[in-house]
C-alpha cells in the first residue's frame, strides 16, 4: 500500500506537469478516445456475447436468457439484471470474492443506461410469455479481463454489443396443458436503438475524456453520462471526492453528445459482423 501510494503521488505529478503543457501520457487530445474493437458472439454457450478491447482494457459480456415469473408490479414485462466482476485476472489490485462497492457501482451505472434508454423494450409483447406468470429474464454478466482504464465505458459497450446479438427461443403454447414450450428456433431479442457511456475525469483542473489506467488512478473526480442514439441523456453518475462546477458539467454534456453519435454507430456496425474469433485480437 505505502509504496503504491508514493508511486501514485509521483505519477499524479508527472501527469499534471504533462497536462499543463497540453499533453496526455499517450499523446491523445484531451477529448480524444482510444481505439475500440468489438467481437460479437464470442461465447458459444451464451445467448448473446461480445468482447471489447478499448485501448488496453479488455472486457467480455455474456447474456444468458431464461424464463421465470415477472415482478408483481410489472406483470407483462421482462426482467434484466446486470452484474459486473472486477476479476482478479484483470489487475494485481483486484481480489476475488463477491462484488465490492466499486464493481456494484459500475454494474448499476451500466444497468441504468440500458434500463432508462429502453433500448431493450421490456414491455414488448415478445418479452412476456404468459402475462403475470412467465416472462423472459436476461442476465447480462460483465467480466473485466484486463484493466487499462475507463472500465465503465468499455463495460457499457460490451453489454450493449452483447444484447445486440442476443437471441431468445421462439415459444409455442401446448394447446392441451396450456404450458409454453421453448422451441429450438430463435429470434433476435427485441431492440430499439442503442446507448453508450462516456466518461470524463478531472485531474487537477483539467478535464479529459476516456481515461487511461494512469489517468484513472490520478483522477480526483469522474463523470459518466449515458446517451442513447436519439441523443437523449439517460444516465449520469458523478464519482470520487473531487467536485465539478455547473459550467464544467454543461461543457462535458456538449462534448459527450457529439462523441456519443460516433460510438452509437459502432454498435450497429458490430452487430452485423460475422461471428468473430478471439484470436483476431492481438491482446
Amino acid at each position: 500500500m505505502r509504496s503504491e501510494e508514493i508511486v501514485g503521488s509521483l505519477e499524479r505529478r508527472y501527469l499534471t506537469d504533462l497536462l499543463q503543457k497540453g499533453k496526455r501520457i499517450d499523446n491523445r487530445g484531451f477529448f480524444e478516445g482510444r481505439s475500440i474493437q468489438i467481437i460479437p458472439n464470442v461465447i458459444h454457450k451464451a445467448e448473446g456475447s461480445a468482447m471489447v478491447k478499448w485501448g488496453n482494457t479488455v472486457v467480455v459480456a455474456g447474456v444468458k436468457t431464461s424464463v421465470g415469473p415477472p415482478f408483481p408490479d410489472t406483470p407483462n414485462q421482462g426482467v434484466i439484471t446486470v452484474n459486473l466482476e472486477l476479476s482478479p485476472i484483470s489487475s494485481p489490485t483486484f481480489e476475488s470474492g463477491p462484488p465490492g462497492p466499486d464493481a456494484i457501482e459500475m454494474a448499476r451505472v451500466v444497468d441504468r443506461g440500458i434500463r432508462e434508454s429502453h433500448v431493450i423494450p421490456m414491455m414488448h409483447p415478445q418479452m412476456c410469455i404468459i402475462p403475470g406468470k412467465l416472462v423472459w429474464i436476461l442476465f447480462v454478466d460483465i467480466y473485466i479481463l484486463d484493466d487499462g482504464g475507463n472500465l465503465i465505458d468499455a463495460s457499457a459497450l460490451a453489454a450493449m454489443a452483447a444484447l445486440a446479438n442476443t437471441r431468445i427461443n421462439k415459444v409455442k403454447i401446448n394447446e392441451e396443458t396450456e404450458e409454453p414450450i421453448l422451441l429450438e428456433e430463435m429470434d433476435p431479442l427485441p431492440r430499439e436503438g442503442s446507448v453508450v457511456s462516456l466518461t470524463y475525469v478531472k485531474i487537477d483542473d483539467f478535464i479529459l475524456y476516456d481515461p487511461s489506467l494512469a489517468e484513472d488512478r490520478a483522477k480526483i473526480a469522474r463523470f459518466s453520462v449515458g446517451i442513447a442514439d436519439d441523443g437523449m441523456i439517460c444516465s449520469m453518475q458523478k464519482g470520487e471526492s473531487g467536485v465539478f462546477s455547473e459550467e464544467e458539467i454543461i461543457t462535458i454534456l456538449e462534448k459527450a453528445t457529439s462523441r456519443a453519435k460516433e460510438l452509437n454507430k459502432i454498435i450497429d456496425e458490430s452487430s452485423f459482423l460475422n461471428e468473430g474469433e478471439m484470436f483476431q485480437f492481438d491482446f
Partner: protein
Amino acid sequence: MSENKNATLLENGLRLDGRDLHELRPISMKTGVLDRADGSCYLKWGNNKILCAVYGPRELHPKHLAQPDRAIVRVEYRLATFSVNERKSPAPRRREYELSKIITESLNHILFLEKFPNGTIDVFITVLDADGGTRCAALTAASLGLADAGIPMKGLVTGCAVGKVEDKIVVDLSDVEDKDGQGDMPVAMVYNTGEITLLQCDGKFTAEEITEGLKLAKEAIGKIYQMQRRALLAKYSQIAESYDEDEEEE
C-alpha cells in the same frame, strides 16, 4: 423510470400533493438527538424520516485499513426493513452499497481528513421511513451530524433531487413522481461555492433540461442550506440559553 406513460402526475399545473413545480415538501431537522453518538441528526422531509449518527474521529480497527496521512470516512446508508412498500431483507442491497459510496465521496470533499491521521469518521444513516429523495435527504442529514459532532468542515453539503414529470422539470421529486415520472436527478452541492459533490440521473433528459435542472436544484439547495444553518444555530442558542440559565442560578 417507468415505460408507462399513462400516469397523470400534474393537474392544473399542480403536482398530486398540491405543490407547485418548484416547491419543496415540508422539511425539518434537528441535531443532537442521540445520547450515545458523538453527533447526530434527525431529519423529516415529506414522509421521509432519517436518523444519522456520527462517531469520531476515532481510532480505526482493523489497523491495516488505517491511512498514515489522513482519516478515512465510512458511511453506511441503510433502509430499515419496514421503510419501504415491500419488506426489505435486513442484508444491504446493491443500491444501499452504491448510495453509501457516493455519500462517502460527497462528505470526503468537505472534511479536513489530513488532520486526523490513522483515524476514522463513521457515519451511520438509517432511513426509517422512505418517501422519495432519500439519498439527498440522507446526505443533508449526515452533513449536519458531522457538524454536530464538532468535526472541522470546509462547509456544509446539501442535497435535493429534481426530476422530469410530464415534460416539466420539477423540484424535490416525491415517491410517486420518482416511480411514474420521466426522470430523476439527485444533486448535492456546497451551496456557497457551487461545487457539485453528487450528481446522478436516470430517465430521459435533453442537455437543456439538465441545465435547467441544475439551476433549479441550486435554488432549492439554497433554501435547504438555510434550514441546516438554522438547525445548527438552534443547537448553539440552546447551549447559550442553558449557559444563561446557569448564570441565573448563580
